[in-house]
C-alpha cells in the first residue's frame, strides 16, 4: 500500500468482482429475510389472535397503527425480497443478456406495480372513513 492511500482493502475491491454489485444484492436479500422473519410471524400471529376474520374486525385491525404500519412494512419488504429472489433464479437460467434484462425489467415493473396496488388498498383502509 503506497503512502497516502487511506482507502480500506474492502473499499478497493468493492464492485470489482465478476458479479459487480452482487455482494450488495446478497447482503440485502439476507437483511430483508430477517425483517420478513419478524413480520411474517407477526402477520400469522395477528390473524390468529383476531377473534374473527370478518370484514369489520379485519378492517378495524388494519386501521390501528399496530396493524397498518407493520402491514405496510410487510408489503414493501415482501415484494422487495421476492423480487430479489426471483432475480437470482432468472440470472441462473436466462443467460442471453437481452432476454435477461427484459425479464428482470418486466419482473421489476410487476413487483413495483403489485406493491403499489397493495399499499393503495392498505392506505384506503387505514385512512378512509369507517365503512
Amino acid at each position: 500500500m503506497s503512502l497516502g492511500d487511506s482507502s480500506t482493502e474492502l473499499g478497493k475491491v468493492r464492485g470489482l468482482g465478476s458479479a459487480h454489485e452482487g455482494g450488495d444484492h446478497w447482503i440485502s436479500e439476507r437483511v430483508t429475510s430477517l425483517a420478513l422473519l419478524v413480520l411474517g410471524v407477526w402477520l400469522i400471529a395477528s390473524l390468529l389472535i383476531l377473534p374473527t376474520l370478518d370484514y369489520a374486525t379485519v378492517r378495524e385491525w388494519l386501521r390501528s397503527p399496530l396493524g397498518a404500519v407493520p402491514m405496510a412494512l410487510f408489503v414493501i419488504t415482501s415484494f422487495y425480497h421476492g423480487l430479489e429472489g426471483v432475480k437470482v433464479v432468472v440470472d441462473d437460467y436466462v443467460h442471453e443478456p437481452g432476454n435477461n434484462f427484459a425479464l428482470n425489467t418486466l419482473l421489476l415493473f410487476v413487483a413495483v406495480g403489485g406493491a403499489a396496488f397493495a399499499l393503495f388498498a392498505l392506505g384506503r383502509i387505514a385512512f378512509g372513513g369507517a365503512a
Partner: protein
Amino acid sequence: MAEQRARPLSPHLGIWRWGPGMTVSILHRITGGALTVAGLAVLTWWLLSLASGNDAYGDFSAIAGTWVGLVVLIGLAWAFFQHLLSGIRHLVMDTGANFELGPNKTFALLTIIGSVVLTAALWFYILGAVK
C-alpha cells in the same frame, strides 16, 4: 463446414444422488417462487377486497373457503414455513457453520419435518376454530 458436436458441460442436476440437502435447496427456490407469485397475488387481492367493501371481501372469503381456495392457502402456509426454516438454515450456513455432513443432513431434514408440523398445527387450529 465441420459438424457441430455437443460440447461437454459441467455436471448439473442429473448426476447427483438425491439427498436432504439438495431437496431442501430446491424446495427453497420453489417455495420462494410460489410465495412471490401466488402469495403476493393473494395478499394484494385480499387487501384490495378489504378496501373495496363488504361485498368484495365476502367474494374473497367465499373463494378462499372453497376446497381449491383452501388447497392454495394451506399450500402457501407450507411454502411459508418451509422457506422460513430453510432460510434460517441458509443464514446459519452463511456464518460458516453446519457444513459437517451429518449435522447438515439432520438440519435439512428438520426443516422439512418442521414445515409439515407447523402447517398441520396452524390449519388444525384454524379449521378447528371455524367449526
